C-alpha cells in the first residue's frame, strides 16, 4: 500500500533540490499520450460541432450532429444495440461466471482446475477477429449450431443465425459471451481463493446450504472482483467493433449496427466526419457514465 507521506516523513514536503526532476521522467510518456490520445480526443469534440466531409471546407453546425443522433431512429438504434449487447457481453458472463466459480470453488486446486485455467483463457488470447470468423462458420446455415439442433429434432428452428433480422444481434452477443465467460470465471475464482475457508466451515457448521453460503459469504467478499468483471465486460460491449465487423458488418439491414462500427462507416465510407465525431463523443461519455459508478461502488477506499 502506498503510505501517504505527511507527518511521518517531514523532509518530503519541504522542497528537495530537484523536486521537479520527476517531470523529466514523466515527460516522454506525457508527450506520446498528449499527441496521440489527448489531441485527437479534443479534435473529436471539435469536429462534432462541424459538418465536414473530410476534404473540403467545414461548416459550423452547433449541436445539430447531436440532435440527429437522438432523433433519427436509425442512429438511436445503434446506441440501443450497444445496451442490448451489454446483456450478452456482461450480464451473462458475470452471472454464469459467478455460478460456475461458486460451484467449483471446492476444487480450485485440483488438476482439473489447473487445466481449466489454461483452456478458459484461450478466447482471451486469440484476436477477436479470429473469434468472429470461427463463430461465423459455427452459426452459418450448414454450421455446427444448426447441425446440433437438427440432431435433437429441432430442424424447425435452424436458420442462418447471423443473417436473420431477429437473431443476428443475440448471435453476436453469444460470440462476445463466449470470449468473456472464461475470463470472468477465472477472475472470480481467484477472488474466491482469497476468502478465508474458516468462514465457509463455520457457515456449514451453522447449517447453511450452498445457496445461503453463496449469498452470505461468497458474494459480499467478491465485491471488487465483480466490479472488475462488470467494468471490463461493459466496456467490451459498448466499444465492440472487431466481432461485429467480421460477423455481420452491422447487418442484416442495420440490426447489428453498434456505435463503434457506425463511427467507422460514417467517418471512412460516408465521409460524415462531424456526425461520426458526435457519436464518438457520446460513446466515450457512455463508457464513463457506465463505468465510473461501478468503480465508486467497488473500490471502498482501499486502493
Amino acid at each position, binding site marked *: *500500500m*502506498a503510505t501517504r507521506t505527511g507527518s511521518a516523513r517531514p523532509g518530503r514536503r519541504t522542497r528537495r533540490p*530537484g523536486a*521537479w*526532476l*520527476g*517531470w523529466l*521522467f*514523466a515527460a516522454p*510518456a506525457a508527450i506520446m*499520450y498528449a*499527441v*496521440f*490520445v489527448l489531441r*485527437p*480526443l479534443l*479534435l473529436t469534440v471539435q*469536429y462534432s460541432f462541424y459538418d465536414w466531409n473530410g476534404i473540403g471546407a467545414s461548416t459550423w453546425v452547433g449541436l445539430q450532429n447531436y440532435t440527429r443522433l437522438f432523433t433519427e431512429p436509425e442512429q438511436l438504434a445503434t446506441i440501443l444495440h450497444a445496451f442490448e449487447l451489454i446483456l450478452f457481453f456482461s450480464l451473462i458472463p458475470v452471472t454464469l461466471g459467478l455460478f*460456475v466459480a461458486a*460451484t467449483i*470453488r471446492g*476444487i480450485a486446486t485440483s488438476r*482439473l*482446475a489447473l*487445466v*481449466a*485455467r*489454461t*483452456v*478458459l*483463457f*484461450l478466447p*482471451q488470447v*486469440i484476436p*477477436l*477477429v*479470429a473469434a468472429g*470468423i470461427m463463430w461465423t462458420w*459455427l452459426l452459418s446455415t*450448414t454450421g*455446427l449450431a444448426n447441425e*446440433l439442433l437438427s440432431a435433437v429434432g429441432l430442424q424447425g428452428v435452424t436458420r442462418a443465425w447471423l443473417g436473420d433480422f431477429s437473431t443476428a444481434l443475440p448471435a453476436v452477443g453469444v460470440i462476445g459471451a463466449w470470449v468473456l465467460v472464461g475470463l470472468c470465471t*477465472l477472475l472470480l475464482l481467484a477472488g474466491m481463493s482469497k476468502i478465508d*475457508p474458516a468462514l465457509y466451515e463455520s457457515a456449514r457448521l451453522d447449517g447453511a446450504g450452498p445457496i445461503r453460503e453463496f449469498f452470505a459469504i461468497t458474494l459480499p467478499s467478491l465485491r471488487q*472482483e465483480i466490479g*472488475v468483471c462488470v467494468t471490463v465486460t461493459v466496456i467490451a460491449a*459498448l*466499444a465492440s*467493433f*472487431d466481432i461485429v*465487423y467480421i460477423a455481420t458488418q452491422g447487418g442484416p439491414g442495420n440490426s447489428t449496427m453498434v456505435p*463503434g462500427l457506425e463511427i*467507422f462507416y460514417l*467517418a471512412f465510407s460516408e465521409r460524415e466526419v462531424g456526425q*461520426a*465525431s458526435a457519436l*464518438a463523443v457520446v*460513446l*466515450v461519455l457512455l*463508457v464513463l457514465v457506465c463505468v465510473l459508478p461501478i468503480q465508486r461502488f467497488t473500490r471502498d477506499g482501499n486502493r
Partner: protein
Amino acid sequence: MIVNRRETLIGRTLLVLLMVITVVPFISLFVTALHPSGTYPDGLSWPDSPQWGNFADAFRSARMGELLLSSALIVAGVVPVSLLLGTMAGFAFGHLRMPGHRIGFLIFVLGLTLPFEGIITPLYYQIRDMGLLNTRWAIILPLIGLFMPFSVLWMRAHFVTMPEDLSEAARLDGAGTWQLFRHVHVPLARPALSSLAILLFLWTWNQFLLAIVLVDDPAKRTMAGALGAFQGQWGTDIPLLCAGSLLILAPTLAVFLIFQRRFVAALLQGSLKG
C-alpha cells in the same frame, strides 16, 4: 474444507462443460480446414481424406511469412518503447512524486477507459498530415500513446510499493536520480515489466481497428488486421478461410501455451488493474 461430494461432482461437470464450449469452436475450425477447398462441410465431421495441403495453400496465398515479419516489426516498435516510457513515468508518479504528480497521474488514468473508436477519426487525419498513412509507424506511434495510461498505471502500482530507504541508501552512495532508476529500480521491477510486456505484446498483435483504418496494405498490418482482409478474399472458400484463420491465430496460441503460467497471471492481474 467441508464440501459434500455431490457438489464437487456438479462442480467438475460444469467446469468440463465450460471447457468443452470453449474448445469446440477451435476444433470445428480445425476439422473444417482439412476438408477439400471450396466445399461446405458438415459440422464436426472428419474428412475422408484430410487436405493438409490447405495449410500450405493458405500460408502461401496469405503471404504468412511477410505477415509474421510485419507483426513482429510492429511489436518490436511498440512494446520496448511503451515499457521504457511507462516505467519512467511510473517511477516518477510512484516514487519521485514531484509537485503536481497527483493531477498528472489522474490525467493519465482518465485515458484508461477510452474506446479506440473515440479518437480514430482525428487520428486518421493526424497520421495523414504526418505523412505516415500506410506505414507501420501509423500503427506503432498511436499504440504507444494509447497503451500509455495502462502502462503508467501498472508501473506506478509497482513503484509505490518500493521502500523509500532503498533510494535513500543509493543516494547516500552518490547515485543521481537516473542512476537510481537505471541501476536500482529497473532491475527490481523485472517481474512487473515482464507481465506488462506480455499484455502489450498480446494487445499489439491482436490490434484490429488501427490496422484497418490506418494501413491499406495487409502485408504492413498486424496479424489481426490482415485476417480481416482475408475474410474478404476467401469469404466463400470456407476450408481455406479456416486454415488461414488457424495459421494467423497459431502464433499467439503458441506463445500462450509456452508461457502459460506467466500469461494467466498477467491476464488476471491485468484485468484487475484495468
